[in-house]
């Protein structure tokens, strides 16, 4: 008797949120994860809860998700810290675009304010003195993703979910076959991030490598997570390797410094030249970073889809097969909204947001 209402494959932050949401809805849930819960991209992530306004669909998903994250703001495991997000302009073009971005975020139900040079200096004194414009989203936050994923899996299990410490060997008719030969029967939701092609090769997905460095403890050095306004477009918009300024104050007082993006690199090793390039970009915006002591650097792989949106919904051509993967750099932010949307679809509820932009069918002929 291995019958379930939902078999969630993969226990990163996305799978964990889906399993938690499904268990809360009263479903009999199986979670299949052979490795550390929250041990993939979730463990390597910065853990920012940030709404990007470049794409209306992404913004809607982020908004839905950020509301859901509020439920965890007092949870110790989340290490939720409401540092706000400060976006800074690196060029006159970016500065000129701030008013429209502020309007978009406020219209979506978020909160954002434009800042002039003096206000920038007041809210974040370590910024380079020549930076002259920015945007502050004061309600945004950072969390610690792996512990959050572990908490959600524990909570799902407390509500009856079964955690299977095996890998899925293949998807079979009406369920999943595990690597020990056992079979779990029921609808399957694949949430395996970068490993998606192993089970669903028809959905294009490429790993996009990133680097991060964390410093020793410098309480008060940094007040907000700070990104350059060109983060998504000018910095990380191309297919080539890129770096963008993105720093974050951790609740420990440490400063987390990013970011880099590279396609077509398999090697998980830290690349010193890429690290150097990323840091030089960061110094441009925040020269004081130069003197901080780095204690650790690491890399991770983001699951990237061709259009940058995750796959959320039914896998075409298969009954009872669902997917929630391909969140690239926004998996932590948008995991709760993704789970909500998926469960709406699975249970036949009215979707909280329009599911069409995320439908996996969009990439299939």
């Amino acid at each position: 008797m291995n019958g379930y209402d939902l078999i969630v494959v993969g226990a990163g932050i996305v799978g964990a949120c889906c399993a938690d949401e499904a268990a809360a809805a009263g479903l009999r849930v199986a979670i299949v994860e052979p490795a550390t819960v929250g041990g993939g991209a979730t463990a390597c992530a910065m853990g920012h809860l940030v709404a990007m306004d470049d794409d209306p669909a992404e913004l809607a998903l982020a908004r839905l998700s950020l509301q859901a994250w509020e439920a965890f703001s007092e949870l110790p495991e989340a290490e939720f810290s409401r540092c706000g997000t400060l976006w800074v302009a690196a060029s006159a073009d970016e500065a000129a675009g701030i008013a429209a971005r502020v309007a978009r975020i406020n219209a979506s139900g978020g909160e954002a304010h434009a800042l002039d040079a003096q206000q920038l200096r007041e809210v974040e004194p370590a910024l380079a003195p020549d930076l002259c414009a920015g945007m502050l989203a004061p309600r945004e936050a950072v969390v610690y993703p792996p512990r959050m994923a572990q908490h959600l899996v524990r909570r799902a299990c407390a509500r009856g979910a079964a955690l299977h410490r095996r890998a899925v060997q293949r998807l079979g008719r009406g369920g999943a076959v595990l690597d020990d030969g056992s079979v779990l029967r029921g609808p399957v939701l694949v949430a395996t991030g970068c490993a998606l092609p192993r089970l669903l090769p028809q959905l294009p997905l490429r790993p996009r490598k990133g680097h991060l460095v964390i410093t020793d403890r410098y309480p008060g050095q940094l007040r907000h997570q700070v990104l350059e306004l060109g983060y998504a477009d000018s910095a990380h918009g191309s297919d080539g390797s890129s770096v963008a300024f993105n720093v974050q104050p951790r609740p420990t007082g440490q400063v987390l410094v990013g970011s880099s993006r590279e396609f077509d690199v398999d090697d998980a090793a830290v690349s010193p030249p890429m690290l150097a390039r990323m840091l030089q970009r960061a110094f441009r915006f925040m020269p004081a970073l130069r003197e901080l002591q780095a204690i650790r650097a690491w890399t991770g792989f983001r699951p990237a889809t061709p259009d940058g949106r995750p796959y959320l919904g039914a896998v075409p051509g298969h009954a009872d097969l669902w997917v929630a993967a391909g969140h690239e750099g926004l998996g932590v932010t948008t995991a709760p909204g993704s789970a909500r949307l998926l469960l709406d679809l699975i249970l036949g509820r009215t979707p909280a947001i329009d599911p069409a932009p995320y439908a996996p069918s969009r990439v299939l002929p």
Partner: protein
Amino acid sequence: MVERCDVAVIGAGPAGLAAARTAAGHGARVLLLDAQPRCGGQVWRHDVAHRAPHAARSAIRAVGGKVDWRPHHQVVAADGRRLLAETPEGAVAIEAAHVVLATGARELLLPFPGWTLPGVTGAGGLQALAKQGWPLAGKRVLVAGSGPLLLAAAATLRRHGAEVLGIHEQASAARVAAFAAQLWRWPARALQAARLRAALTGVPYRCGSFVRRAFGTTQLEGVELHDAHGTRQIACDHLAVGYGLVPNIELAALLGCALDHDTVHPRVQADELLRTSVPGVLAAGEAVGVAGLAAARIEGALAGHVAGGNEAAARALRPARVRARRFAALLARQFALDPRLRALADAGTIVCRCEDVPLAALDGCVDARSARLVARCGMGACQGRICGAALAELGRFPRGGLRRPPLFPARLATLAAFLQPTIPEIEP
């Protein structure tokens, strides 16, 4: 700035000094790098109050003027074969035809209740502090742990005015006697042991004895000792406790050198000419397995010959090396740790001092990575050097996350200095 040389020797202890001198003797342009301000490494660390031993002075004198000695150079990263060192003047990149890793060893510290109290240090740790001028005159110091280095530490502490209450060796009296009975095979070691015993006249040396607990409110006040006769408490100001040495393999791992994992603490894999698995990279001394001063000096010379291009001279040192290495086997056998030491830490004992992680927080962790993700264990400034080795010794899991720069905490500016073909301009 990129510095180019024939041979870069990393570490200026006995092995590094010998390697640098030998390679330079073959006409090689040698850079000798060490994070410390002076040559000598740990065993020959400069003592502010006392003259260095004759061997140290002559080894240091021998490199004078012949090699390019670079103090305050901490190698923190590597890209391929290019090394990046942090110095007080900024970052320096180094490219060498041969790299000799003479990175030595560090102390093995094992967690027990109270081990994080101020006043508790490593045995070698307190020895190093004493040499640097830490005031110990009149302080009551208990030395504990394992291995012959306890004698050297105790002698230094006494010379600096400490009242050494006793040396508590965890190995049994039978094991220590068996070790002593073999010492005649290494006359220099036997002589050294005799000198140390003479310097420690009146200091009790207890075998089969270990510290179970350290106590004190804000500062160490005393320890609980356990031996065949039972448990007793003894008041002291300092506890200097070390359980032997762990090879420093981090730079080797970063360079991609294969490691031997047949022992609890990995060693750099090297062939009979001390070549590692990475062409052009050699390793000598404790990094290839803890064997003490004599082996380190021979191996340094051997690696120096190889790096200097004189393989015949290197081969001639092989028999001496084999003999010196036998001493390592004897050490490992006779000072093997009592299994009870691995059970001293209780659920509330801190294992990761950087992040204040108690042992109980690691329940369910299957490897070093899950310990980091679940409990932040090993995520602090020591990068898991202390807790990683301790947890491996406790039989939990091997240390992980080795192949990542920076090897030591380093300024972000240093890591940003890695030269690359093109640095894209950033629009102001």
